[in-house]
């Protein structure tokens, strides 16, 4: 992927009136987002708020209403939006004979992965892994990677064809405190040195507070968006994350015990 000195700031992505329904159940309605390149945008919300559905809708993986625009603000031209997607996890169980090379080359190359490795493809995959200091993992079995290692491999895969938008569904488990710090450090590096915008579905409010440029509080629709300070200080944030609303039963259980 092409490294640049600074993001241009002239590209923007607009999500207009996005809505998703499964049958009668409305999961998302009238979601509007405005995202600039070079910014880290965090989407937060409770479980079941529709965060993962938003990701799938933006990937065009499920039917949705509304539109997603990608525009060059300098000349107003519309462009095709390329999304680099990093899923929470992959469907690879223990003992699955898939190496990191197989995973990457399967997605990014037409050279069959069941044939002896092609030096050219191998070097290309290695180069992309190097950005995330993961080139040593290339011959490891994917099922034996730690959560953080897998995430770095998936990041390499996501940015391989120079996306304009990096869409990350942050893993809920498998990454320790050190790994989280490293991950958010990488996000910071990416947004500063590559020409892309980042949307991150996150579960860690502390890290979001520390690193995000723009925060979106989601619950079926956008309850509140803005800077960390604006969102975290809002009554909507208080309403969604106020301690005890969902967890009262845990306390009761403890008292009973």
């Amino acid at each position, binding site marked *: 992927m092409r490294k640049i000195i600074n993001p241009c700031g002239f590209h923007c992505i607009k999500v207009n009136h996005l809505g998703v329904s499964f049958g009668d159940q409305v999961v998302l309605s009238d979601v509007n987002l405005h995202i600039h390149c070079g910014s880290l945008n965090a989407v937060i919300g409770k479980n079941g708020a529709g965060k993962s559905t938003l990701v799938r809708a933006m990937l065009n*993986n499920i039917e949705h209403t509304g539109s997603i625009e990608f525009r060059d603000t300098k000349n107003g031209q519309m462009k095709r939006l390329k999304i680099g997607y990093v*899923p929470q996890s992959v*469907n690879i169980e223990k003992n699955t*004979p*898939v190496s990191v090379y197989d995973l990457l080359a*399967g997605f990014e190359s037409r050279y069959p992965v*069941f044939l002896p490795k092609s030096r050219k493809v191998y070097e290309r995959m290695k180069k992309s892994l190097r950005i995330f200091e993961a080139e040593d993992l290339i011959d490891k079995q994917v099922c034996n990677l730690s959560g953080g290692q897998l995430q770095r491999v998936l990041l390499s895969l996501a940015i391989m064809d120079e996306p304009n938008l990096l869409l990350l569904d942050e893993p809920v488990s498998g990454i320790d405190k050190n790994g989280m710090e490293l991950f958010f450090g990488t996000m910071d590096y990416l947004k500063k040195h590559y020409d892309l915008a980042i949307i991150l579905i996150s579960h860690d409010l502390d890290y979001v507070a520390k690193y995000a440029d723009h925060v979106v509080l989601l619950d079926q629709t956008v309850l509140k968006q803005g800077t960390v300070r604006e969102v975290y200080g809002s009554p909507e944030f208080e309403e969604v994350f106020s301690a005890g609303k969902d967890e009262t039963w845990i306390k009761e259980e403890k008292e009973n015990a």
Partner: protein
Amino acid sequence: MPDWTSWLEYGFMKNALAAVIIITPLFGLMGTMIVNKKMAYFSDALGHSALTGIAAGVVFGVQNTSISMVVFAIIFALLLNKIAESSTAVDTIISVFSSCSVAVGLVILSKGGNFSKYSSILVGDVLSITKQEIGYLAVIFVITVLFWFFGFNWLNSVCIHKALAGSKGIPVKLMDDIFAVLTALIVVLSIKWVGILIINALLILPAASARNISENMREYHFFSLLFSLFSGVLGLVLSYYTSVATGPMIVILASVIYFATYFWRKI
């Protein structure tokens, strides 16, 4: 000393050997993906649907039951794929479809007490294969190998993560459908020689054994093909000298390999 090549003096054994040399690598190849995609149940159901395919041929007066079997299996495979997409309890649905189609097939074929005519399809008989039928198998073999060269990377990506594959521009549904149809074709075209009861074992065992000892796609394919071909050829020869059915003999050898690799992995 016994003569170890005497079996090749018979024309039917030469044909059977040719068939085994085509069928087993084909099964080894398809098996790698069927096992990774956890479609063992699916391919089993396809095998069972062959009975209904024959029955449908009898009902509609089709002379060549291979054609009715192929048509029915393709419809069956696409239908299962479609339903599996929108449901979570896939194994239940497959089981319902499978038992239902077996029952319909048995009812029609057993009408008038005629089922013994068709019972050979349960166990299969590779020794009765003709040159022309070997030709059909060779054609499907070439198609599969070509598809593997051009489509395997995508197939593997779809298996690893559908949404991720979609985001990279891979036609997820199309790949799933092509694979299902190809599996259906291979299963019904080889069912007469392998038999409904054991066809799935031949699809699954070599790949499952290879999976026990492989770390990447190259080892996986190599061992799956090797185990499949080895148990196929050795099973044919052994069945000749011991006068037992060929298919089950091959499956027994493949099972022995499976357990050997299983314990190899443990130590």
